[in-house]
């Protein structure tokens, strides 16, 4: 599904150069649930942005569904992104001026689907997320958990091949966080590939595999269990 070869990204300002990603080689298979962990500033979000086609890498190769796309321009990336990738953000990123229904409907609008089709899909997914009764409310009128469920609904509505979640539980209390994790797991069992950035080891451990980033480098990958030293390292931070 996803494969990167020596992916690198450097941020330059007038004074300093920061290496955000340094020769990252990562492979995610179809249907996999991968958690990305690492301290603040290690490049997690940068990696996710590049994987999500929101940003370009400086060097290296990126294969999405077998296509090398690191040289794509913005328009091509936009077209590829549309309907194929769903995003979930820590701060939900719902549009304040639109109500929940309209927010969830957005990706279908971008795809240019018919109105009747859109209505059907939106209502279905809102009910599934148990926020159908709040569809006419505006984001600010909802609780954090409800907002995140709406954001997830929005990410799922196009049945994307892959979901990229950037700390989806970061702004939620444990109950709501748990609900979101449950949703993601459920989604994964139906075949959706998920890459999730998280600070929470507990949530990370529910993925098939954990990838650790440190100073822009992939320090280790493991499935099942996290190594003791890493656990120490993480708890030290």
């Amino acid at each position: 599904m996803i494969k990167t070869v020596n992916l690198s990204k450097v941020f330059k300002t007038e004074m300093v150069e920061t290496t955000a990603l340094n020769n990252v080689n990562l492979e995610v298979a179809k249907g996999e649930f991968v958690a990305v962990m690492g301290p603040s500033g290690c490049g997690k979000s940068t990696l996710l942005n590049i994987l999500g086609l929101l940003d370009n890498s400086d060097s290296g190769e990126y294969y999405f569904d077998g296509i090398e796309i690191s040289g794509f321009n913005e328009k091509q990336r936009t077209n590829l992104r549309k309907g194929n990738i769903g995003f979930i953000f820590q701060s939900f990123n719902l549009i304040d001026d639109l109500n929940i229904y309209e927010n969830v409907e957005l990706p279908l609008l971008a795809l240019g689907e018919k109105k009747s089709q859109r209505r059907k899909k939106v209502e279905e997914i809102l009910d599934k997320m148990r926020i159908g009764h709040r569809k006419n409310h505006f984001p600010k009128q909802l609780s954090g958990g409800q907002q995140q469920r709406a954001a997830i609904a929005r990410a799922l509505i196009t049945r994307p091949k892959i979901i990229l979640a950037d700390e989806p539980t970061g702004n939620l209390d444990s109950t709501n966080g748990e609900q979101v994790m449950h949703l993601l797991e459920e989604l994964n069992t139906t075949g959706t590939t998920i890459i999730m950035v998280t600070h929470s080891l507990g949530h990370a451990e529910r993925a098939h595999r954990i990838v650790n980033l440190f100073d822009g480098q992939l320090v280790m990958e493991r499935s099942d269990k996290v190594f003791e030293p890493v656990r120490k390292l993480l708890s030290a931070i």
Partner: protein
Amino acid sequence: MLLRRIFKEKLIYLIIFANLIIGYATFIVISQFISGQFMWDNYNTNYDRIYRLQLFMDQKENTLKHTWSVTAALSRKDLIELPEIEKIALIHDVGDNNKSGVFLSVDKKNQFLSRFGYYADQSVFDIFTFKFIEGDSNQALTKPYSIVLSKELADKLFPGGNALGKQVYGENKVVFNVTGVFEDLPVRTTWRPAYLLPMLSYAVLTGQKNYENNYWGYTFHTYVLLKPNANPAAIDNKIYDALKDFRKEHHPYLRPMAKLNVNPFFDPSLYIAIGLLTFLSVLILILSSINFINLQTASATDRFREIGIKKTMGFNRRRLWFQFMLESMSLTVAASLTGIFIAQLALPSLNNMIGWGSFPNILENPKLIFIILAVTLITGFLSGIHPAYIISSYNPVAALKQKFISEKSNGINLKKILVTIQFSISVFMLIVAFIIFRQTNFMLTKDLGFNSQTILYSNIVTSKEGSFEPLKQRLLEHREIKDACVSDYIPFILPGGDDLNWEGGKPDEKVFVRYSNISYDFVTTYELEMITGRNFSIEYPADRNNCLINETAVKVFGWQDPIGKRIKASGKNYDVIGVIKDYTVFSVSNPNEPHLYRLLQDSIVSNAVYSINFAPGKEKEAMNIVKEEFQKFFPDDAFEFSDIKFLTQNEGAVKAFQSLQRITGLIAILTIIISSIGIFGLILFMTQRKMKEVGIRKVLGFSYGSLYVNLSSWFLRLILISFLIAWPAAYYVYKVLPGANKYGVQIWEFLSASLIILAVAFATISYQIIRALRVRPVEILKDE
């Protein structure tokens, strides 16, 4: 801190500042223009007590209603008895100032054609404020054959100065002694003589021996000075029927000097125009204030960190509010002072451009400065409230975290209202400016109904007698001269008239009809159109007892078939032989009046006007020819020729319309500039506010095109709403616009004004949106 920010954010502050300066400078300039209209004559020490005697003529429609040409007997017999009156001054033109001037000279050789000479009582110096440079104002007009000169004329006649006691020749015949020189009167003066002769000499010099008992000759002007606390209404009551034995429909009254410029004859036109201008200038001020609010709030978005930190460190809301208020106030005050400075700098060129001596120096007008400063503080405060409130009320955590303003917005919010107001005002102003511009253009370019392009006319006073025919024949020998005539008045030189009965009218009903005496060729020389009947002709000797009238006269008299009808004028009966199509006799703004034309006997009259119709493009040649021929024909008389355009283009109403047109043009341009700034600010604000949405939409895969439509449709909706508000409002203004000669308003004016605003909006929107779209979504959606 503010200065540092200004340097850091040059662009936005440049825009904020330019916006305010334009707003204030426009307001100041228009206020100056308007207050200039009310400052006429106010340099007179007795300003509040000076009144002009006028007449109200209670007669038919389409005739003259008010005049300030009155009889001498009214002042000499009636006013003089009234206890409320302190001084009366009787004034009469020397010659006819409407028409021509008088040739003055010092040495009988270099003669200067001098207009605006008046016979006047010595009391004019008690009523009006004249500053004498030479001579004694207490006795300057007490001796016969004195002459008092304005400085301008004195400098012309006596370039070396010291005019006092010297002699001046009038038409090389009469000798006057200079008894005084006064400083030139300000431009904004209603009665502005160039020189004065004593009323004592009027009877001798004009032959009007019995003028003081004359209730019939409406050629004098009268100004009075009331005693302090005198009630003018009481005087009006006493003199209301003073003319009942002569013309019972005429009623004298006093008009205060303060009204003589803005509203001499109870016609609200100028008030409406002034009101409209005031309204427009206030709108510009509101526009720039709204812009200021929007730009301030927009530029404040990147100050969250500052606010957050300050709040965390214990600054309270009041203090932050105060800080932002202070910034807002200092910006407006600085802009206002710069505005005054710029207005002051622009004054000479504005005076040149707008003309009419319209703009008083702002420093002459402390009241205006006070008003402007008050307005500045108020707008500064009002436009500061919103941003200061919004900014200071953010909670510190949110302020630290948030990068962009996000307001609660469902349905109608303040921003939307401001935007709609902004667009409505811009569109409204532009349409109104269009309407005023077109209306004035209509007045200025309308067909005057006579040849106003290729005519030369003379200024000459002669004692020669005889036939005009030989001179005419000599002139016509030249190919460059097409036609020539002689008449006592010509278009744009207003003749006098009399109250007449007409055939078929009630025996006691009279209307005021103007008279001209014209030669056979007047109609052809001025290319007037005959509607029915025929022109005077040398083949009909009886034409000396016949007359022509104009269309309006036919209308006023109510005649179905005017030919052959009889009119009695100056005690003689005249039969109508033809009707001349109405043409503009005097002013582009006034309605036409009844007019009677009699045949000028084929002889030269002392102060007739000679008109020459020359071949197009041959003005110079024609001028040389007439000079040569007149020199031969009138060897003893000084004369001058002028182009008819000099008259038509210098007429008061024409100049007023030009001034109005130019100032409206100025307003239109500034409106466009200021609304572009406003739209720029708004869109900057909106795109910042919508950044997050743009980011999200981009992440979701929306194309640039759809994002553009999405962002701009927001504005488009508001712009359309604003059209709905602006159009009827502008149409209403068109409806209440005064004037006998209104042009027909057209839909394309509304459309084009709206399109301009739309184009400006879309240019700015596109620029901003494209900028916003270029930002990578990653930047926008970053969670810190």
